[in-house]
């Protein structure tokens, strides 16, 4: 009988993900040398006005991985994920410093059009935000604005299938998307992203407004989708990160002398490592529930 450290047994209790299952998942990940980097982030700082909301972040996001950002409220994880599709550009006071490389190309280069970036890097938001249109028109919106209107019906059906929603809505594509349940609406938003065939799927707390059954469906979906897509997810739910993520980044808040809060990246490693053998005391306190 092997004795497991206290932190590990506690983690099993909290997440319901068994340690051997985590270890098995880690064994299946490609070794670091074989991982293809999609995003290379170095020295990233995001300011709103004068105040940095997030400072000095360095990490790599790997192809066909699910990467989770966890941490307490205000740690800048949502700010961070919005750097990958330049959504922060929409906030006039936001300034992004440092570099984000996308397949080796500077995402914030002078000649890069944020609209082109967002075509390749899709995003699902915390609260389901279907357009006040029909189910079909929601999914077809992306292809239409991008001019991908050849065999649109097949494209819509494929996207709804990938988002595991087709069987529930195939008979009522003309009905308003607002008539769907919250969980269905969120899967519709995922289908909407998939319809434009992005490279990366960013998910900002995609299940936080959903019931447990819908949450499970979204998580299962992430396991499916990572075969074709690179997925980055922000979650304040540690169990969720443990269940879905291959790599996990833990962010924390640093409070300066004048009381201002800045998010910092504490630790970034494989999910099993972060949850069972963290290298930083702050990570350990967080994942074992002693903090936050």
């Amino acid at each position, binding site marked *: 009988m092997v004795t497991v450290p206290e932190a590990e047994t506690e983690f099993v209790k909290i997440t319901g993900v068994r340690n051997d299952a985590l270890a098995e998942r880690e064994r299946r990940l490609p070794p670091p040398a074989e991982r293809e980097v999609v995003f290379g982030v170095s020295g990233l700082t995001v300011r709103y006005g004068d105040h940095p909301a997030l400072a000095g972040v360095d990490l790599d996001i790997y192809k066909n991985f699910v990467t989770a950002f966890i941490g307490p409220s205000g740690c800048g994880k949502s700010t961070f994920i919005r750097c990958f*599709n330049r*959504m922060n550009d*929409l906030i006039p006071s936001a300034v992004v410093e440092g570099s984000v490389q996308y397949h080796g190309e500077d995402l914030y280069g002078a000649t890069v059009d944020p609209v082109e970036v967002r*075509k390749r890097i899709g995003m699902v938001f915390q609260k389901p935000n279907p*357009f*006040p249109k029909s189910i079909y028109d929601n999914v077809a919106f*992306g292809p239409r604005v991008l001019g991908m209107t050849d065999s649109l019906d097949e494209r819509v059906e494929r996207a709804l299938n990938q988002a595991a929603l087709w069987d529930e809505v195939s008979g009522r594509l003309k009905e308003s998307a607002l008539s769907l349940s919250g969980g269905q609406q969120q899967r519709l938003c995922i289908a909407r992203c998939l319809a*434009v065939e992005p490279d990366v799927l960013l998910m900002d707390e995609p299940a936080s407004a959903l019931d447990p059954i819908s949450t499970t469906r979204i998580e299962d979906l992430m396991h499916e989708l990572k075969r074709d897509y690179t997925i980055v997810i922000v979650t304040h739910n540690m169990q969720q990160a443990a269940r879905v993520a291959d790599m996990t980044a833990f962010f924390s808040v640093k409070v300066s002398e004048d009381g201002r809060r800045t998010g910092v990246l504490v630790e970034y490693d494989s999910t099993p490592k972060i949850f069972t053998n963290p290298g930083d005391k702050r990570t350990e306190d967080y994942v074992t529930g002693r903090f936050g």
Partner: protein
Amino acid sequence: MSAPAVATGLGEGPTRGRWRGHLFRGLLLLSLAVGFITLGTLLVDVVQRGFAYLDGVLLTSPPSSNPEIAGARPAILATIYLGVLLIAFTVPIGVGTAIYLEEYADKTRWYNRALELNIQNLAAVPSIVYGILGLAFLVRGLGLGRVLLAGALILTLLVLPTIIIAAREAIRAVPDSIRQGAYALGATQWQVISRQVLPAAVPGIATGSILSLSRALGETAPLLLIGALQYIAFDPTILGAFTALPVQIFIWTKLPNDEFKTLAAAAIIVLLGILLTLNALAIFLRNRYQKKW
């Protein structure tokens, strides 16, 4: 089973707070009654007086010195022309301004804030002042003359601020999550506005525009000032002399003959009919296309 030991006090009748509630409710009903009774009396009075002359002659004949054969056809037509021109002028300009202010303007810039403040203030400027502006600038300055087009342009200036404000409200009511969702799919700013924001704002914009239009069509003062106070016995044209329905009513009420006063009452019924139809259309549009997020 024994009686509960706790005194609940539930059966002790209404408390003092309830009476205050009733009093407040009474006051609210009273303030409703003031407006409702005044309007009701006015309507009943006008219908009683004008009903005798509310006939085909009123709608199809030009004015005349003989009240028996006098009608308001030119004025009714001019009011309809004014309405059509007003919609054509105000909606594109008003919605365009509203889109700029809500979607493009950087609100930290002083000139955008000045613009906003200016529009708010313009909405409160008395209509007679617009009339003076129209007389000085359009009729004389540009040499347009006392024509229907000049009237339409003045009314355009008059209702533009209200339409801008209504359109801005409607655009602002479209949740930001809709814009974000569209941007995240790779839509350009113009695509986001034209395909998501505007369609979602159309009911609000339409309602606001129609209500402003009905206010403008009842407007008399600025039209009087630019000289719509004329005896017009022929159908109006855009670049010709004109008289609008409210002005025609004004003219008739000033005539000494009682029969013309009856005629005025009948014309008021027609004008109210036009305005109530427009308002009903606004309510219909609002209910029909109201968005729920």
